[in-house]
């Protein structure tokens, strides 16, 4: 886009002439040069995409379609094995639970992030004195490096000396094995992930609220609408486009969450909190004998799921623009 705009003024008279009569060699040369300039502008982007996007993607696909052992990985002569790695992964007893955990983790996280984010956005939209300060404070989870917040959550949830159990103790509740009980591990990582995701939802929804014209609220208050009616009839419907984008982006972000779970539980105890992302890492790098093929296959499945949601996002966006 920018390129076209940049060289349009220079090129305009030449193009006009060329379309009128036979193109002169000079014009053609000029046009070729401008085309080369255009390509030169695009080249860095293409190079970047090829080196950091296409090539890794191709390598990952290649890894998942070959029977890699450590020996053939080094020698580079792994035989093509078709869908064997995928078959192996799908037949693995870990696959079912990992897929289920991924889905539960993603959808429950998003539901809570969205609802709490929306509630906070509406709250801060009421413009009271401390609102900007408080809103800034709510952004902290987003600003902290994930290793810091995940480690802190893992200490807080520690079953022996964690502050959460210490707090529960005051209310006479027995200690809960937040990260050590198979019934709680997934819940614990979801709680931490919800906390981390709220600021993102808050920021986007808050900016969406700012775009709702104030007259609508004034009219509603003249008509004597209750707070709930205002929310149901004005805020929520007018926020729908922003909501859709928030939810879909959140989906793609949450699907691939790995570091948080790895730092807090490493997918454990057993495989009680393992998702496709942690399982893929576990296969590829988690043991002394790396299984690159199946690891890459799980990674590709994850990319595929994310792609489905990505396409969904693009479709929703296009429909909104239309």
């Amino acid at each position, binding site marked *: 886009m920018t390129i076209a705009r940049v060289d349009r003024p220079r090129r305009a008279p030449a193009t006009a002439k060329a379309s009128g009569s036979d193109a002169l060699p000079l014009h053609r040369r000029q046009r070729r040069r401008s085309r080369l300039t255009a390509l030169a502008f695009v080249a860095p982007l293409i190079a970047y995409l090829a080196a950091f996007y296409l090539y890794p993607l191709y390598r990952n696909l290649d890894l998942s379609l070959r029977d890699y052992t450590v020996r053939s*990985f080094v020698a580079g002569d792994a035989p093509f094995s078709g869908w064997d790695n995928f078959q192996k992964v799908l037949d693995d007893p870990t696959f079912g639970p990992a897929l289920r955990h991924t889905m539960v983790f993603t959808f429950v996280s998003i539901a809570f992030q969205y609802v709490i984010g929306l509630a906070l956005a509406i709250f801060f939209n009421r413009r009271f004195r401390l609102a900007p300060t408080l809103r800034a404070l709510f952004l902290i989870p987003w600003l902290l490096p994930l290793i810091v917040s995940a480690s802190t959550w893992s200490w807080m949830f520690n079953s022996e000396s964690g502050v959460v159990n210490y707090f529960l103790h005051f209310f006479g509740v027995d200690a809960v094995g937040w990260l050590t009980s198979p019934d709680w591990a997934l819940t614990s990582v979801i709680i931490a992930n919800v906390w981390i995701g709220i600021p993102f939802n808050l920021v986007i929804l808050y900016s969406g609220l700012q775009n709702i014209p104030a007259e609508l609220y004034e009219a509603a208050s003249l008509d004597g609408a209750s707070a709930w009616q205002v929310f149901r009839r004005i805020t929520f419907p007018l926020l729908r486009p922003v909501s859709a984008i928030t939810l879909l982006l959140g989906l793609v972000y949450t699907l691939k969450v790995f570091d948080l779970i790895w730092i807090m539980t490493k997918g454990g105890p057993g495989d009680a909190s393992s998702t496709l992302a942690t399982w893929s890492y576990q296969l590829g790098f988690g043991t002394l004998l790396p299984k690159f093929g199946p690891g890459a296959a799980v990674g590709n499945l994850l990319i595929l799921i994310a792609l489905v949601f990505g396409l969904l996002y693009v479709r929703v966006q296009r429909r909104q623009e239309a």
Partner: protein
Amino acid sequence: MISTRRTLLAALTVAGVLASVTACGGGSDSSGTTDASGGTYTFWDPYPQFDASSPWGKRVAECGTKAGVTVKRTAYDTTDLGNKALLAAQQGNAPDVMMVDNPVVSTLVEAGILNKTSDLGLDTKSIQKNIIGAGEIDGSAYGVPIGANTLALYYNKKVLSAAGVDPASIKDWNSLTAALKKVKAAGKKGITFSAINTEEGSFQFLPWFWGAGGDLTKLNSAKGVAALSLWKGWVDDGLAPKDVLQNTQTTSWQEFATGDYAFGENGTWQLGNADKAGFDYGVINVPGQSGGSAPVPTGGEFVTVPVQKDTARYDVSKKIVTCLTNDANLLASDTTLTYVAPTASVQAEQVKQNPKLKPWVDAVAAARGRTSGGLGTKYPTISQPMWTAVQAALSGSKSPQAAMDTAQASAQKN
């Protein structure tokens, strides 16, 4: 016409860009090797805690100088080193000398990237059989151990005496469990260890597994299940904390260092921290199920020489390895790393310098390599199901027998 030319041009540009990208990659590779043949030898180790000015860093540099070359040392995190080595070998720029954690040796041998010590003409006769065993595949050694560390039980003297437990009375599992119960009754905490779902968890479980007479190729035998039931019993009865499931050996040490715990299963490398803990401690060997010392797994690194295209480089690499593993340097290195030396003569010297090492020398004498006994690269495929089973049983999602059955089934499939 114009549009075809445009696409052609675009395609050419893309191809050119791609070619230049790959050319860049190739270029850096070749420059790496020419660099090295100019008198620089690359050396990798898993000791990022030691920089160039540390005694270890200086020793490595010195060994290079003695061999007439410059050594370029790079330190990686130990969990990272195995994969880094595989990638480097794939790219054809493996280091000249590399120190790796002993269970990784068999993986790298499987990948075909390590030289046999016999081919290089390195002398390994004086090294204890069980220590070099971790680096042996099909009867050939693929590296020289720099030293060994292993596990034992640290105990807090004050906690034990307050509970009326004599550490000398702990001879087997029953007496240990009885001691833990007494400690708990006295209001203190029993034992802490690491049962995390990584290799560390398997490393810590092995003394008990082997102490029951367990066999890694039959995880679900009654003996293996007995070891897992022992741990599960401790956790269920509150003799060990629930968070052992999350403990690394470092966090487990931190728990023991609070002074509340009677016992902590930990390694030789914590001796330095033990002196700083601020309480009197002692060390006993991990007891076997029915008495005696349990076989413990060996930890510690091997000095290896990865395969190079230019075989002329091996002469100098050999000199560097010999220098690092001669008696005088072993003594110095193993003191820095708090390792037990791999040769009897240096061990005697170490105990003379520091009598506290005596139980550790005994433990190492009874230790086994994880990949020994012909397991090799089968070990990783057994270890992963085993730590998963430990997690499943201790967290209560499966019974010890069911957990080990699942583990055995999954280990056999690989």
